[in-house]
């Protein structure tokens, strides 16, 4: 198993906020949003909303979901499952680990 890619410091992402990591860094089909929940935990989802083209890194993180900044479909931070129209397709969740204040991303690995 890989060591993961160091994508940011924990201090770069405020609680309840997100940042987008370019696919050039992650090597994935889409950019990846690192989203930090209110309790301080980090999660990772494909960044582009499955409805249109919004960046989920700009979404509102609350109660285990991120709400799309354009039309407010919600995606589960752990599973990527969509809850609520207009989006109908689930998104992809990736594994994230925080070690020594640094955020490591494991692209295309399921979160544990």
């Amino acid at each position, binding site marked *: 198993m890989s060591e993961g890619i160091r994508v940011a410091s924990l201090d770069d992402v*405020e609680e*309840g*906020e997100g940042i987008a990591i370019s696919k050039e860094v992650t090597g994935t089909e889409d950019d990846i949003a690192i989203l930090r929940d209110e309790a301080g935990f980090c999660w990772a989802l494909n960044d582009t909303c499955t409805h*249109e083209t919004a960046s989920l890194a*700009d979404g*509102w993180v609350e109660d285990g979901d991120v*709400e799309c*900044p*354009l*039309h*407010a479909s919600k995606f589960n931070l752990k599973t990527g499952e969509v809850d*609520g*129209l*207009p989006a*109908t397709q689930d998104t992809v969740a990736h594994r994230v680990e925080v070690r020594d204040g640094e955020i490591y991303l494991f692209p295309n690995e399921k979160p544990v």
Partner: protein
Amino acid sequence: MVASIVIVGGGIAGVSTAAALRSGGYDGDLTLVDAGEFPYDRPPLSKDYLAGKQELAALALQPAEWYDDQEIRLANRTTVAALRPAEAGVELSDGTVLPADRVVLATGAHAARPPIPGATSDRVHVLRTAEDADGLRKALLPGARLLVVGGGLIGAEAASTALGLGCEVTLVDPLTPPLAAAVGEETATWLHDLHAERGISVLTAGVDAFEETAGGIAARLNSEHAPRDFDAVLLGVGMRAETTLAEAAGLEVTGGIVVDAGQTTSNPAVLAVGDPTRRRVDGVLQRPAEHWEAAQHDGTRAAATILGTPQPEPTAAWFWTDRHGLHVEGVGRMADAGHTVVRGTPGDGPFSVFAIDDGRVVGAVAVDDTKAVRASRRMIDGRLAVDLDDLADSGTDLRKLLRAAKG
């Protein structure tokens, strides 16, 4: 026990009702009847779909297999002709009667076509359905002269899309600024002025008549003597609730199908959701909501009523609209507020305007600043008091402000 439900109309309200019934545990018979080819979403019809950037298939409200997965019988290309409350059923246009212990009317609305002389010309368009959008798009050739009548949500969006397609656009509205009731006077003015800045001719006028000419259509405006020539016209003057079935069934209809807080009409076996409805709260008829999320929430409420489960917590009304590359959102009530607080500078990046009553946020409208609206909605719903200077300071993190207010 409710063992069969027929939903009439497959817009966001009808589809949301069906989804909420299933997720709420209803396992009886469920039929969704819709006149169209498949249930699709309307907001893109004045935006990317009109611009030719999206196919109709991409607008499907649910993938085709969803209906099977959810055991929802989708009767597409089918019209309900009448309600048969006495027989606990609905009659389709081919005479078939479907049994229904409960009927949910989700019949939506039509684009209004006011009786302006000449408005029946093929060159005068409205915009409600995909067919309307297809017809209008054919007229939006580069250089085509388009007159948009009405600067509200749909008129402004279509005008902006047409401009992007290279049309020469004129926008008329008798009110300046349009939309003041929805977004407040100052933002309405800023948004309306943006049209002229981007190259649309904006006139304060109404239309008295249209007349077909050799190769186009002439419009007589009430503000000037000589008619003006156009290639096409779009009427964006509001909607007319589809209430035919409700009226024929003797339900209470007053500018919309009248429903209670749980979406039940004057007949307890018939509920109604979305654009055709008007809610009566404490004996007072509310204005029709006419927005996407309101229709979705109606569906959730109707399902809760049928299932006898608790109603969802009420939340401030929310809508979005897009024009000239800007994403605009509104929440709560902007009209008649005590005063407003502005965060950011209109014209210089994202900004938001908050309506304040008694020191509390009661509404907000934001341009390219969706977090301000998300935060405001929570302030409104929670009746939270926040420091107004902090609110106005674009350096303040609104999430933190919200958290501090929650205590």
